[in-house]
């Protein structure tokens, strides 16, 4: 990757961080807090997704 493309890519990422910062801050301060049961309900499908991605990696692995 050319140096100018690296700088442009980093600038885009930096801009996204700058735009996302207040959103993240708002959700951290004002967002609802989940109970242990809520988190279990979210972690189960995410674990299934991780298992699926591992399966895909094993499928394409030579």
């Amino acid at each position: 990757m050319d140096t100018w493309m690296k700088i442009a890519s980093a600038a885009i990422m930096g801009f996204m961080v700058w735009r996302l910062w207040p959103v993240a801050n708002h959700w951290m301060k004002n967002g609802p807090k989940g109970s242990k049961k809520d988190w279990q309900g979210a972690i189960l499908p995410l674990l299934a997704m991780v298992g699926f991605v591992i399966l895909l990696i094993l499928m394409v692995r030579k």
Partner: protein
Amino acid sequence: MDNYGQVASSRDSALATNKVLRNTYTLLSMSLIFSAVMAAVSISIGVSQGMALGAMIAAIVLVWFVLPKFENSSMGIAVVFAFTGLMGLSLGPMLGYYLAVPGGGEIVMTALGGTGVIFLGLSGYALTTRKDFSFMGGFLFVGLLVVFGFSIVNIFTQIPAMSLAISAGVILIMSGLILFDTSRIIHGGETNYIRATVSLYLNIHNIFVHLLHLLGAFSGDD
């Protein structure tokens, strides 16, 4: 009479939610098809990395600065198509690279199918369980900031292991955001189908790009 009023209000709310959901999935499927067509055009005309970066910058400008002005009018749909078309165009060089290597077509199709299964599975889970995943907001947005921070560092350091860890992190966060965004539509947190479409499109786009990166790396072609 009060009970009748509550039932009617609840029914109206459910109808409005279903309308947002239906419009979101319709616009999302059309914009994904358009994005795929633009990606194919990008490969066939041989869009360079510089042009792809330019298309991505134009897409970001559209979504951050233009879309908020038109998100409540029919012009918003045109902006969504312009945005998803540019995002599709930006995929050209990466897809061209993978398709040129032996077995690359299989990797691209696996990433595409895998992304579809992940999206349908997680969105279906949120729709059928009707759980409220808004409590994940803080965790997901902070996670996104952390991943962006590491991505900036890795643009200059180019550490392969960090690149793979970033891809794994992005897939995990975008998957969480699918649950989060879908549950926001169901529970009335998101009532604008144009905004909802863009959010879900970005989740799918990022999962596809980073799944392709992971599969390419582990197949030995990256």
